[in-house]
C-alpha cells in the first residue's frame, strides 16, 4: 500500500503550502470526516484543511513554512489554527468561555471537570502577530498602555479589544505572584477594559537547599519538592477558583469529577512526554522541530477541546513510533543537535535553524510542568497544587537550568539557542544565568538573542548570529570537540 499515510512513513519530507494544496485531494474523505472538534455540538465540525485555508484567514506566515507530509501532521496544524472557530461556535451555542492567563495547564485541570465550557490560553496571543505578519494587536495594546517595553503577551490585550481571535470570555482567570510582571500588567489592563478578571496567587517555589526561610518541605514521587506553605496556599486558591467556576457555570462538581478530568489530562501529558522523547531523541528525528513545538503547547489547554487534542496527540505519537521503527524522518540523520530554550515568537526561526543543517534535540519552553503527571493518589486540588509547583517560572532559574542540562546531556546537544521574548521581564536576567551555567557545566556553546516583531522576513541581525553559531558548531564537530 502506497497511500498518503504509508508514504508519510516510508518517505517523510517537509513540504510547502502549495504542495500540501496539491496533495490534499489524496487524503481519504473518510479520514477527513473522522477528524472533528466539539463532537458534543451537532456531531462536531470537520477541520482538517490545507494550511492555505488558514493562511487565507490571515495567518500569512503559514505560507513561508514547511510542513510534515503526513496527514497526522496536517491534522495537528489544522487543530491549532481552528481553535478560534471552536471558541466562537461554543459561544454561539451558549457555552461559557473562560480565558486562563499566565496559566500553563493548571486551570484546565479544574475547569474541564465542567461540561459546556471551553478554557483557552489567553497568553497564546503572543505568537499571533508573527503568524499574521501584522502588528495590529501590538499597536492596539500600545494605545492602551502596553507598548514595546512589554512582553509580546501584550497582543492578548489587543485581542481582547478586537474579539476577532475569541469571543468575549465570561471569565478570565489570571495567575499573579511568581510570574512575569508584564503578564500581570497585561491582565490588569484587560480587567480595566471591563473584562471579568479574577486573580489567584502563584507562590514562589523555594528549593530545599535554599535554606533562607526555614520553610518545611514536602516530597512526592515524580514531583519537585515544594514548601508545604506554598502547596497549601495553592490548594486554597484552587478551592477559591473552583467556587468561581461553580458560580459561573451554575453547578458544582465533585472531587471525583475533577479526578476523572485529571486522569484524562494526564493521558495528554503522557502522550506529549513520549512524543518529545522520540522527536528530540531519535535519529533521524521522526518529526521536525515546529511540529514538536506545536505538540508541546497542546497539553496546556488542549486548544479548547481535550477529547480531540488526545486524538491528535495519539496520531502524532503513532506517526513518531512508526517512523522511529522504520528509522525514517523528514530530515537527515546526524544533523547538528540544538537544544532550544524559551519559545520563539517567530516560529520560522526554528525552520531557519533546521535549514542550516540542524535538528532540535530538546527544548525548555517553560512548559515542563505540563509533561509531568498530576498526582492522582491524593485529593485532586492538592494534586493540582503539586503540579503548579512544577512551574519553572515559579522557581529560581536553577530549576530551568537543571531541566535544560538533564535533557541536553541525555540527547547530546551540541549547542544551545536561547531565544528571548522581546520585553519579557524574566528574559534579561535569566538568559545570562542559563547561558553561563550551560557553558560552565556542559561546556557547549550557547547563543542568545531577542526576537523582535518583523513581518515577512527574519532580521539580518538574527540570521547572521544563527548562521555564525552553526558555523561554530560545525567547526567544533569537525575538530572532534562535540559529542558524537
Amino acid at each position: 500500500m502506497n497511500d498518503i499515510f504509508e508514504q508519510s512513513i516510508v518517505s517523510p519530507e517537509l513540504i510547502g503550502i502549495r504542495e500540501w494544496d496539491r496533495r490534499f485531494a489524496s487524503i481519504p474523505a473518510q479520514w477527513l470526516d473522522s477528524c472533528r472538534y466539539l463532537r458534543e455540538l451537532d456531531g462536531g465540525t470537520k477541520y482538517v484543511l490545507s494550511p492555505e485555508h488558514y493562511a487565507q484567514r490571515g495567518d500569512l506566515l503559514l505560507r513561508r513554512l514547511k510542513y510534515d507530509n503526513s496527514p497526522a501532521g496536517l491534522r495537528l496544524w489544522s487543530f491549532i489554527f481552528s481553535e478560534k472557530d471552536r471558541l466562537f461556535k461554543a459561544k454561539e451555542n451558549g457555552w461559557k468561555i473562560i480565558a486562563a492567563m499566565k496559566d500553563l495547564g493548571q486551570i484546565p485541570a479544574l475547569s474541564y471537570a465542567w461540561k459546556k465550557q471551553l478554557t483557552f490560553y489567553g497568553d497564546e496571543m503572543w505568537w499571533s502577530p508573527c503568524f499574521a505578519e501584522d502588528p495590529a494587536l501590538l499597536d492596539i495594546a500600545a494605545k492602551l498602555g502596553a507598548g514595546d517595553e512589554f512582553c509580546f503577551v501584550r497582543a492578548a490585550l489587543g485581542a481582547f479589544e478586537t474579539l476577532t481571535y475569541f469571543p468575549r470570555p465570561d471569565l478570565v482567570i489570571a495567575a499573579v505572584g511568581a510570574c512575569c510582571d508584564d503578564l500581570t500588567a497585561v491582565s490588569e489592563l484587560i480587567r480595566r477594559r471591563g473584562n471579568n478578571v479574577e486573580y489567584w496567587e502563584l507562590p514562589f517555589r523555594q528549593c530545599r537547599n535554599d535554606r533562607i526561610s526555614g520553610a518545611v518541605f514536602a516530597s512526592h514521587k515524580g514531583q519537585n519538592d515544594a514548601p508545604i506553605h506554598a502547596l497549601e496556599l495553592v490548594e486554597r486558591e484552587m478551592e477559591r477558583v473552583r467556587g468561581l467556576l461553580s458560580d459561573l457555570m451554575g453547578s458544582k462538581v465533585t472531587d471525583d469529577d475533577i479526578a476523572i478530568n485529571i486522569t484524562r489530562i494526564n493521558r495528554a501529558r503522557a502522550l506529549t512526554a513520549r512524543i518529545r522523547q522520540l522527536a528530540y531523541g531519535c535519529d533521524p528525528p521522526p518529526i521536525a522541530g515546529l511540529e514538536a513545538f506545536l505538540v508541546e503547547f497542546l497539553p496546556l489547554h488542549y486548544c479548547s477541546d481535550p477529547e480531540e487534542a488526545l486524538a491528535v496527540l495519539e496520531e502524532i505519537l503513532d506517526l513518531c513510533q512508526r517512523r522511529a521503527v522504520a528509522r525514517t524522518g523528514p530530515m537527515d540523520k546526524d544533523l547538528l543537535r540544538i537544544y532550544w530554550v524559551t519559545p520563539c515568537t517567530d516560529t520560522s526561526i526554528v525552520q531557519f535553524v533546521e535549514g542550516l543543517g540542524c535538528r532540535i534535540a530538546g527544548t525548555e519552553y517553560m512548559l515542563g510542568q505540563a509533561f509531568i503527571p498530576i498526582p492522582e493518589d491524593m485529593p485532586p486540588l492538592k494534586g493540582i497544587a503539586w503540579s503548579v509547583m512544577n512551574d519553572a517560572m515559579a522557581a529560581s532559574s536553577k530549576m530551568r537550568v537543571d531541566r535544560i542540562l538533564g535533557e541536553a546531556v541525555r540527547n547530546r546537544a551540541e549547542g544551545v539557542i536561547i531565544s528571548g521574548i522581546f520585553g519579557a521581564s524574566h528574559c534579561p536576567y535569566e538568559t545570562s544565568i542559563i547561558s553561563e551555567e550551560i557553558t560552565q557545566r556542559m561546556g557547549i556553546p550557547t547563543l542568545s538573542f531577542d526576537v523582535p516583531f518583523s513581518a515577512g522576513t527574519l532580521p539580518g541581525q538574527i540570521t547572521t548570529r544563527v548562521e555564525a553559531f552553526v558555523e561554530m558548531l560545525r567547526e567544533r564537530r569537525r575538530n572532534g570537540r562535540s559529542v558524537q
Partner: protein
Amino acid sequence: MRVTCGVDIGARTVKAVLFDVDSSSVIASEVVLENANPQETAQKLVERLCSTVKGLHWPDTVIATGYGRRHCLFADDATTEITCHAVGCRSIFPDVGLVVDIGGQDSKIIVLSEDGAVCDFEMNDRCAAGTGLFFEMACSLLSVDLREAGKLAAEAKDAAEISSMCAVFAQTEIVSLVQSGIATPAVLAGICRSIAKRTSALLGSRRLRGRIVFTGGVALNRGVVLALSKELGQPVSVPESPQTTGALGAALLGIRRL
C-alpha cells in the same frame, strides 16, 4: 595559479580580496563604497581586481560574507563575517584571542580558542550607537571631516561625557554639548569613548586571552583605537587594512573548496 576571492558586502562598503593560494599571499584588494546595487558593485570590483592580475580571468572560487552575502549570486558559497573575521585576523596575528569588529552597521566581539576556532561571539543590537554610522552622523553634526575626526579625538586633552544609550538621543546630546561650549575635539573624544564602552560591554563576563585585534572601518579611527585600548585595559592591534580582514578570511576559507 590558484586564486580564491573573498567578497565582504557590508552596510557601507564592499570589500574584495584576491588570494594566491600557491604563494600564500594577497595579490589584490580594494574597498569601495556601497551603492543601491551591492551585488553589481561587488561583481565589478572582483572583475576590476582580476584585471590587475596577469592571466587571471576569474578566481577559482568566490566566497561571500557580510550582510549582503546571501545576495551575492556570483559567489560559490557564503560564510558569516564572524567566521571570516576570525580566520582573517588569525592569518595576520596567530596569537589573536579576541577580535573586535566595528563596521558601519554593527559592532561585534569574536572570541577565539587557542586553536583559532571561534568559540563565542556577541553582537550589538537594538541601536546604532557604537557603530561607524553613528560616528559618521556625529561628524556630520560637528562639521568635521570623517578622516580627520579620529586624529582630533586622539589629540584631545579631555573627553566629554556622552551618556545616551540611543544614537538619536546621543545626537541631541552632542548638539547640546557643542552649544554649551565644549570643544569639538573633546566631543569627538567623548564619542570615541562612548563607542569603546559599548563595545567592551559586549564582552560581559568573558575573560580575555591573547591579543586583541580591532577590525572594521572604525578601526581606522585613531580616537576609537585609543579609547578601546583604555577601556579593555590592554593595547589593541589594528591590521594594516582593517576593513578587508573579513574578505581575507573569506578568501582563505575558499581554499577548502579547491
